[in-house]
């Protein structure tokens, strides 16, 4: 139980951070993370910002009805929820693999 918030960081061994950071396995982990996260973020921002841009500047197109009174604008808005959930699912799946690599990299230091 820590009594003061100002005491030293957790009593982990003081690892050689530089050495860990230069490990090929750690570098490989970073590359794999980047290869997933960067394209995902770019896709997500484009997909999301397309909504206000289309709704704002091409309202007539977005008012096209697709099912009864339901129009493209509403369907596109709903698809954002689906996109967010699917992306979260994919992220959690791939992140579980990263956890294993991370655990292997720091093994012996904890």
């Amino acid at each position: 139980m820590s009594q003061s918030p100002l005491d030293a960081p957790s009593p982990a061994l003081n690892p050689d951070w530089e050495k860990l950071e230069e490990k090929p396995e750690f570098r490989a982990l970073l590359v794999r993370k980047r290869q997933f996260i960067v394209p995902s973020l770019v896709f997500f921002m484009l997909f999301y910002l397309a909504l206000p841009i289309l709704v704002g500047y091409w309202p007539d197109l977005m008012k096209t009805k697709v099912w009864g009174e339901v129009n493209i604008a509403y369907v596109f808005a709903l698809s954002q929820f689906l996109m967010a959930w699917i992306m979260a699912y994919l992220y959690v799946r791939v992140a579980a693999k990263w956890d294993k690599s991370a655990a292997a990299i720091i093994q012996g230091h904890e």
Partner: protein
Amino acid sequence: MLCSSLLFSSQLPILSVSMASNAPLIMFLAFVGLTLLITFWAAKKNTGASAYFAAGRSITGWQNGLAVAGDYMSAASFLGISGMICFSGYDGFMYSVGFLVAYITVLLVVAEPLRNAGKYTMADLLAYRLKPRPVRALASLSTLTVSTFYMIAQMVGAGVIIQRLIGLPFAPAVVGVGVLMLVYVVFGGMLATTWVQIIKALLLIAGALLLSFLVLQFHEFSFTKFFNAVAHADYGGTAEPKNLMEPGLKFGVAAAGPWGPLDLISLCLGLVLGTAGLPHILVRFYTVPDAKTARSSVVWAMAIIGAFYIMTTFFGFGAATILEKAKILTADGKPDTNMVAPILAQHLGGELFFAFISAVAFATILAVVAGLTMSASASFAHDFYSNVIHHGKENRPGMEIRVARITAFCVGAVSIGIAIYLGPSVNAAFLVGLAFAVAASANLPVIVLSVFWKRFNTSGAVAGLAVGLISSIVLIMLSPNGVFGKAGAIFPLENPGIVSIPIGFLAAWLGTILTARDPAAEAKFAELRVRAHTGLGSEKATSH
């Protein structure tokens, strides 16, 4: 009303009347009583700073997911958005979409590094390799600013609810909420705050489900009928039918002038990037044992929050198909945008359901206010008092918690004052949208750059925080809602994000490259990087 009159009307007419009129008060008191019990229980478990500020890092994934949802779905979401959709249709629904998808940024970029590298506040991450004093001082200022903005919206919501519910005038109602929230935070700390948020999230989902069910029942459980009615929304036959499914009623060129569409894009940018910079959401990730649990709590939160915002379709649009205009206008004929959901509940489910929904709305506000106060006071005590004034050395044990309690008191008093000054008519979702823009402009750039850019230095962080904060606030002041009013506005957009977020990033970048390299900060980058991506050396759970 229906249920109580069925039960009592034959034998006990007097009781029936008093039950109905006191029902809101009884439900409200039941919630307050329950949460006070939790606070009392939590107070006994609060031994030490980690317990007080981070609930001993013992919260599980689904619990924290519910608490994040409870911390996030505020008066803005429930009261503000339903009012916005009821009057502006589709354009109001844009808030619902933005509030959810924003969690992608939280999940992919900030939650895990933050949990791994920090301790109690957002600034811990920044101070990890930069000079702690200037960085913490500014991060603390930005935390207090964002939290106060956010809190004012909650206070306004609470004021109108209590006013309607118990008949208390606006000002005393706001003061009452302030006092209650102080009790939670001052005595219960993060543990009590967490449980208040969890209970509130469950209540809010239950309330939203019931309300959506009643709206669909009104339309005979036919989506075709429902969407038909929304496309010819006539406010119970009291207005010209208008098509609320169509975009443009709030931000369209016809409604808002040539700047409208850009204002919508600006709002969306602020929403989607702001969540990852909201201090009261970020500190929630310190309450779990590790980064993996932080990740699963974001996913839980996304499931709950998403379901809730989809339901705003039913009680937001639904209100416009059912409620008569006269019921949802204020005394002087303006749209009463914060009271649509409770009035809809009253119309469809009677007095008891109105009481329930009002109690839920109130619980919502209390939980968010507790979370805001908690993060603001933790930041002031931990970042400013301990690390800036006392150079990171605590002169007496327990002092940090005491300072946090005093700060909670001051933050509460300031927000109460401003909320009373602004009065009951400002829309809560709009106010919160501004808080998001400030968070996205000031906090997000420095969080991202400190984790991902080796060259980033203290001057860059100071510039990013200060310029992001100042530019977003100045733009709000110059906007049509600002000091010069609609006619004299110098900045044409109501939402500053599209300008102030790039300015925040630019300032952080320029501040770095125009000043000398900081070898100490760059040397520590390896440490931060390993720690952020592997969790080595991160703060461990202290109590279970």
